């Protein structure tokens, strides 16, 4: 690499050899990193899931698929799984719909657009722990301003985070509030890539605003929507920090109503130190994420020709 061969000699095979050598020199340290910090731990989790691995005990016996069988009978895991699915089903469409509406509105205005965009983005850069505390206070049944507002509107005050029926939705609202700014900017980016000539042509053809949206905006936003759905789903399936910090004394909410799979894994692994069982849950979570991601990429991605 230090000796520079004349350009002519580097054609064909020797040039490719040179490129390969350089590439692998550059990739050496990163490949070791990915191997040690990402791939080996993944395999290690698979292995741990086959053992009764409790770091407080002296022996770690091999138990085969016992941990996985235990999962099927574990009602709390079932609840965590249902909750996580519910968070995803509420959160992903909500943030995409709200994000799209705000982005379309922001596209309509000229003055103050940058300022509005920045203000909507602010929650995204807020530390989650701080946001969760404020949320707890806002929705407090006794001294929360949200209930004060409801009373002012002559609506019965609600229990929100203290109610098993409302805690999950209130938590999801926090996550949507935090993600919205990112979502808006993502859609603004997607919208900016659509050539204006398409709309002009549609206008000449007599299309109204609704038609233009469904025939031009929506299909051409498809790549952005797929990106949002896939990355949003992955992040909702791993929901943890918001849930933990919303209720620090009763993590997982009243009657486990806000418990997520990630929080359950955390409690099993680092509360009870049952690393084997917790690993089995992580493997199941991984398979769910893998299946959903592949499904979404397969069925959401469309090619539109205009």
């Amino acid at each position, binding site marked *: 690499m230090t000796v520079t061969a004349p350009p002519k000699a580097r054609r064909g095979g020797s040039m490719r050899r040179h490129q390969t050598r350089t590439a692998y020199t550059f990739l050496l340290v990163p490949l070791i990193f990915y191997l040690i*910090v990402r791939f080996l731990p993944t395999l290690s989790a698979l292995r741990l899931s086959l053992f009764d691995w409790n770091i407080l005990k002296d022996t770690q016996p091999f138990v085969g698929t016992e941990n996985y069988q235990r999962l099927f009978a574990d009602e709390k895991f079932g609840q965590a799984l249902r909750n996580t699915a519910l968070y995803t089903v509420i959160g992903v469409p909500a943030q995409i719909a709200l994000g799209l509406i705000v982005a379309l509105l922001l596209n309509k205005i000229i003055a103050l657009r940058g300022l509005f965009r920045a203000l909507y983005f602010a929650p995204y850069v807020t530390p989650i722990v701080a946001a969760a505390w*404020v949320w707890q206070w806002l929705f407090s049944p006794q001294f929360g301003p949200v209930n004060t507002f409801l009373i002012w509107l002559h609506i019965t005050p609600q229990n929100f985070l203290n109610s098993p029926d409302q805690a999950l939705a209130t938590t999801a609202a926090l996550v949507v509030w935090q993600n919205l700014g990112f979502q808006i900017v993502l859609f603004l980016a997607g919208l900016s890539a659509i050539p204006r000539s398409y709309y002009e042509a549609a206008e000449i053809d007599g299309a109204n605003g609704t038609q233009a949206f469904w025939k031009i905006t929506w299909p051409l936003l498809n790549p952005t929507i797929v990106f949002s759905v896939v990355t949003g789903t992955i992040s909702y399936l791993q929901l943890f920090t918001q849930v933990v910090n919303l209720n620090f004394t009763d993590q997982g909410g009243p009657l486990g109503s806000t418990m997520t799979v990630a929080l359950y894994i955390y409690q099993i692994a680092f509360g009870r130190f049952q690393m084997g069982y917790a690993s089995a849950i992580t493997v199941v979570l991984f398979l769910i994420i893998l299946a959903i991601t592949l499904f979404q990429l397969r069925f959401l991605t469309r090619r539109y020709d205009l």
Partner: protein
Amino acid sequence: MTTTLDKPDTRETAGDPRPQRRLNTPMLLAYLVLTVGIVVTLFPFMWMLLTSLKSFQELFNLSFLPESPTLDNYRQVLLETKFIQWFGNSLLVAGVTTATVLFFDSMVGYTLAKFDFPGKNLIFILILSTLMIPTEMLVIPWFVGVSDIHLTGSVPGAYFAIMFPGLMSAFGVFLMRQFFETLPDDLLEAARIDGMSEFGIFWRIALPLVRPALASLAIFTFLGNWNAFLWPLIVIQRPEFRTLPVGTALFNGEAGTQWGLIMAASSLAVIPVLIVFAIFQKQIIEGIVLTGMKG
């Protein structure tokens, strides 16, 4: 992607069919809805800030504005807790990981974009696939490994333990690869003919040309590590090594539920991030614009 780079003013291609320059009913309506949205979005911030200025006595009366504003909560947080130390820890952790991510992710992205070699696509797919591995799955083996070698007992060990998962990021590799692909090969070839070393070409020719991408990657990496919670919560045992999110989260339990202190701590944790955001707003948004395009 190039269209965005060429036209920073997105108004000309914006999704709306006819951006109107004069105020009319639809535009007024848009302003109205957006303003209501902003008020709702920012209300939690206002509440946090105003509550942090309330004295203990008036904390629970439901007035919006503090009657006699006081900075006592801030004094207590700064002087009577480890807040400043946690702040410093977070700064160190986020700073170091941002530097390593920028260096390695751009090197990997450049290699995957600009070299032809066997295994190239496989390596790219493998790195990208790590995005689907849930953090929870990795955290358990990391914890077992870190405990086995008693890493967190000493100063460099503890900081290394917090940082190592974030030293490189697959998302950054993806982002940088997209950017380097837009660089013309001729430029690099010319430097090669001039006898520049391969690392020199990367460092002195290619890297300066993707500065906008580096800026946005830097900001996202910094934010991500500044706010990281799960792994630091698990790996740190000693209070003095806690990062800001972990310190303040556990501070809730230790201080009882002293809402005044909590709101002051939250406000302090938000302020630096908001300042950074205000300064780099343009790059942050541009960064999303450029990554979002690739859906």
